[in-house]
């Protein structure tokens, strides 16, 4: 779980904002973009070595079935007993040529595996992000505006409760209430069997079910997909909503205390407009930055949500592959996650730069 500490960005538009310079925004984007690569490289390296010192996939799969000499023979055949550096450079070489390999434990091309599960996780992330934004931002505004009054206290309590409840516990409670006891919503999965079949028969599916359903005009399926999406999105969304609420509140309170808000007030601008416009837009810059970091939190939470709701996505799959010591798959997923996080942060930086006019010149 990423941290609440991050929810704090003490200085709105602080010195961290790139300065006006001859380089301009183009250079800024380029540098930010190039920074993605070391991140990925480091993570992949880290995971490679970590995975390899913990054992091999063959033992994981067949350990209880074969005598040790046969296991050793198979391990030798697969080349897992060669010096680890040799394997490492070989692996780097493969990646460099775009060959990500085939998973060891369930024999899927890594790229295809990532496409399948990545889109599922993406869908979950989008759904819960929508929930988080819809809940977190307006409530955060209310809390900041009514600070230190009862609504603020209640909202902050709510925010902390959201954060304090482990996703899987929240998911379990939601499931027991809304699916088992009340029977309003399905228990688990991304869609019911018939919808899944309909989805798998589409010609060029995007993998994001609701998008596919809309594109194929299958509105019955869309309803089914929506029903399935509610609980996981709420479970994961609430966790993030708590952080967003706090984030919006803190930063809004920060900007609400700025002279320019006071200046707006001194000109007779209404309190509502001060909160939603004058203070909110500058507050948005750190908010967006930290929200980017929340992507990491969301992906972490996704593991737990996916498990609880049978949502076949990257997070859950990663836990499975780890157990199977399927390092090819694990490295593939780690790389994708790293790319997602890095790209998100990149996009967020760009977004923040767009909002902050000082970066543009």
């Amino acid at each position, binding site marked *: 779980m990423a941290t609440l500490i991050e929810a704090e960005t003490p200085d709105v*538009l602080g010195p961290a904002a790139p*300065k*006006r*310079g*001859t*380089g301009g925004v183009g*250079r*800024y984007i380029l*540098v930010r973009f190039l920074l993605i690569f070391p991140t990925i490289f480091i993570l992949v390296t880290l995971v490679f070595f970590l995975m390899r010192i913990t054992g091999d996939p063959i033992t994981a799969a067949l350990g209880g079935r074969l005598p040790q000499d046969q296991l050793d023979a198979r391990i030798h055949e697969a080349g897992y007993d060669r010096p680890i550096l040799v394997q490492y450079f070989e692996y780097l070489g493969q990646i460099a040529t775009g060959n990500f390999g085939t998973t060891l434990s369930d024999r899927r091309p890594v790229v295809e595996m990532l496409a399948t599960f990545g889109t599922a996780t993406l869908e979950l992330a989008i759904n819960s992000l929508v929930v988080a934004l819809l809940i977190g931002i307006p409530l955060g505004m209310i809390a900041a505006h009514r600070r230190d009054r009862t609504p603020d206290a209640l909202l902050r309590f709510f925010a902390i409760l959201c954060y304090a409840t482990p996703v899987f516990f929240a998911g379990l409670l939601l499931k027991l209430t809304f699916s088992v006891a009340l029977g309003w919503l399905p228990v688990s999965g991304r869609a019911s069997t018939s919808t899944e079949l309909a989805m798998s028969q589409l010609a060029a599916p995007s993998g994001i079910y609701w998008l596919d359903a809309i594109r194929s005009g299958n509105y019955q399926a869309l309803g089914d997909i929506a029903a399935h999406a509610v609980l996981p999105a709420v479970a994961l969304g609430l966790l993030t909503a708590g952080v967003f609420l706090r984030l919006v509140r803190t930063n809004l309170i920060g900007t609400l205390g*700025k*002279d*320019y*808000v*006071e*200046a*707006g*007030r*001194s*000109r*007779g*601008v*209404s*309190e509502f*407009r001060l909160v939603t416009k*004058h203070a909110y*837009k*500058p507050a948005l*810059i750190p908010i967006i930055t930290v929200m980017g970091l929340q992507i990491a939190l969301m992906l972490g939470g996704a593991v737990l949500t996916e498990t609880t709701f049978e949502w076949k996505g990257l997070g859950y799959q990663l836990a499975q592959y780890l157990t199977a010591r399927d390092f090819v798959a694990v490295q593939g997923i780690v790389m994708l996650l790293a790319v997602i996080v890095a790209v998100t942060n990149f996009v967020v930086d760009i977004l923040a730069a767009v*909002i*902050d*006019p*000082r970066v543009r*010149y």
Partner: protein
Amino acid sequence: MTINLGNISDGPRDAGAPVLDIERLKVTFATDAGDVHAVKDVSLDVKAGEVLAIVGESGSGKTVTAKTILGLLPETATSSGTVLIKGNNVISVSPATLRKIRGRDVAMVFQEPSTALNPVFTVGWQIAEGIRAHAVDGHRISAKEAKARATEALRKVGIPDPEIRVNYYPHQLSGGQKQRVVIAAALALNPGLIVADEPTTALDVTVQAEILQLLRDLRDKYGTSIVLITHNMGVVADLADRVVVMYQGDVVEEASARTLFAEPKQDYTKKLLAAVPHLGRDSASEGATARLHQGGKVLVEAKDLTIEFPGRLGTPGFKAVNGVSFTVSENEVFGLVGESGSGKSTIGRAIAGLNRVTGGSLKVFGYEMLGFKERSFKPLRKDIGFVFQDPAASFNPHLTVGECIAEPLLIHTHPSPEQARLRVSQLLESVQLPASYAARYPHELSGGQRQRASLARSLALNPRLLIADEPTSALDVSVQAKVLELFRDIQEEYGFAALFISHDLAVVDMLSHWVGVLFKGRLVEQGIGSQIMGAPSQDYTKRLIASLPVPDPEEQALRREAHRALLGT
């Protein structure tokens, strides 16, 4: 909710009635440490077309009074009394009415233009926001019309090409322009009254002169009344018709500007006026015809000194100091003046090894600072003292004053604890602080006391050279006067050489034997202090001196006339 202590309203007023009438205003803040009575009993009024100045030392309640006028006090404040604007008592009106009053009947100009403007909206939008917040003749103003009016307001305050600049973001404007925008926003709805809280404090003197001129023009052209809050007596002398002196939340004296400066009645006012440095009076180089103290060794020698800060991400660097040559000899006080950003601090810091020299030559005690090594320079450090601008920030909040003062001793002379304590007491005494203050923490001292302690620390090792970077600019005038006096005495007693940095010409003149004027990293002029102040040879120096208002309305009026051409207003 309010108990109005004063009369609530005495009906419609005649034409000569004051635009603002404050009666028995009282404001109290709740704080962690208990209630703060910021304003105790203030009554004043402002007539149409009048500039009323409120002066007083820091914390005397000026800003709080100003904010009360617009109903801008924070929630922790409780206020009573009446503040009447066009028949409305700001203290007791409903929030909706208050919002209508703000901007339409009374507007505010803030101290720091860069923080008073929202960095993510265009200046035009920000001015238009104020316009659109008020219905005119019962209908809302369209965005387009508001923008047109904003452009008009920008034109009024003398922003060139307002049609273009209306779409600029604040960071695209200079400090002076920003302050003009803030004033334009205040003017947008033609309020009868503008409250300006230290409108020029954050600006350079030359820019200050322009803004003061603008305010004067507004009053003259549109008959706008102005409440001018400032601690700068020069500004008061330049602009104010009437002056209210505040001291600890109370009004101690009220008089017309001329009367006040000519014959102050209250002791406090007298003291305040006496503490204000006055250009041309009390110069350290009074009567000197040649450079003083040239007999001794040259301690600092700069030749074509260039200091360049590297640019970020491959952008070209920034030359903060460009080809500067000067010397500082034993016993000499070298004053360095110039506007903000001209490179004064950079030079001072380079001498102390805090900034790297990138070109030319800088010799400190004969040691070449170009490409200096901390290790070889370290032994020389005990001969250099440094006094920082902000006394509060230059002490480690976790160490006692005594520990801070003893630190240089511990590093260079390794004294026994007893010796160290003794030396600390001596030092404190020499800066006229009780020895018992050694046990206090920095925040337990007042600003002036802290700056004295800072001076004591810099003197701990009997340095041969002292660098003082704006040592008094964070202090009140009265406190500043004391610290400056102390500095002068100690310098005479110890006889160290000093590089004295300040943006205040009068202060520099008071202390320095030899003065250098910096402009954009170049030393445009150097010479004997009294001569430079009296008869500057360079245009820039002339403008600088002309911009500085002197704390005497009569004299300032004359100076203003005399320099009108030079200031280009």
